[in-house]
């Protein structure tokens, strides 16, 4: 009889212990989910757009409506600097004395193989002037901006705005060159412009790269 009673105690204690285990058998962990946004990337100009050294005259003797311009084009693919003179005009002319070179840019820290879009300045929105020259001195305008992809997933191809083929490499880097056309002044007699002076003509423009 004593043995039976003792066994009952053992079973009761064991059941109590087991019951306590079931009631508290739960662990909870608070944790976080993290995401980092990095929209910014680096766009650096390695070399500026250079039209070289030119002999150039502007059409200063014609009314604005019929004034013509000579042009000098620097191709982004590095194929050289070429001048084009309007046929029949003796006023506007350009000759290349020393070759120019396209601007070059490097994009870094973008997502690997990302396709980027380049936005160029609008035609004639960029004006080049001589710092020391009077306002009536002839200026230049830029037009026809275009680019050539020099590295990345589509290296050595002309940039195509339709397909946005400026694509980064596996490291998130891509380089490209930009060319444009320089136009002589066409403000005509209304602008009372005078011929170019010897010196450096400079202007600022924005090249925008975006995903």
């Amino acid at each position, binding site marked *: 009889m004593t043995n039976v009673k003792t066994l009952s105690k053992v079973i009761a204690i064991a059941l109590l212990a087991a019951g306590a285990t079931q009631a508290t058998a739960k*662990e909870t962990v608070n944790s976080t989910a993290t995401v980092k946004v990095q929209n910014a990337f680096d766009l650096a100009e390695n070399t500026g757009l250079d039209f070289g050294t030119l002999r150039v005259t502007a059409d200063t003797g014609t009314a604005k409506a019929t004034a013509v311009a000579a042009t000098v084009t620097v191709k982004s693919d590095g194929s050289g600097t070429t001048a084009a003179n309007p046929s029949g005009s003796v006023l506007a002319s350009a000759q290349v004395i020393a070759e120019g070179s396209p601007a070059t840019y490097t994009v870094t820290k973008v997502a690997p193989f990302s396709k980027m879009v380049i936005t160029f300045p609008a035609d004639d929105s960029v004006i080049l002037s001589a710092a020391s020259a009077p306002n009536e001195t002839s200026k230049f305008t830029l037009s026809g901006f275009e680019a050539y992809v020099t590295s990345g997933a589509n290296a050595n191809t002309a940039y195509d705005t339709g397909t946005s083929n400026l694509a980064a490499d596996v490291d998130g880097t891509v380089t490209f060159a930009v060319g444009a056309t320089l136009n002589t002044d066409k403000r005509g007699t209304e602008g009372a412009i005078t011929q170019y002076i010897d010196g450096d003509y400079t202007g600022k423009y924005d090249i925008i790269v975006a995903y």
Partner: protein
Amino acid sequence: MRFKRVSIIKLILGSCLLVSPARAAVELEQALDFGTLVMIDNHSVGTISMSMDGDVNFSRHFRVLTQGHAAELTLSQYPSYKMLSIGAAVMQAQTQIASGIGSEQFTLVSVETDGSVVTDSAGMARVFVGGTLQSSGDPSGHYIDTEYQARLLLTIDY
């Protein structure tokens, strides 16, 4: 004979203590991380999902700069070959940033994990947790470059 009975009682209680959850350990090896993203379009809601295996799927709204990983927990000091029930729930769906203001936020819409896991002979098991994050889809908003965090709760039950 009396000494023997006391020993049996101690032995049974000892067994119960060994399986007590008070001694089980849950170690968070790494938290759920969706990586580093570029937000290229917020005109509609974008989603990025991290599977328990660490596979990432994302909509056209994102580019992935660095890949993240699923959350990983190590469970130890559980009974051998014991089935544990695993639960994961979103505690705070809207993300927050350190600076607190000035940015659109993401929403942690779901988390996923295996419903159960069986411990090995040493009483250990590993648990992975994935999830899905949504962008706001508000084109007037702006995601600043920073780290965003949501909170989740994991439970281990048996």
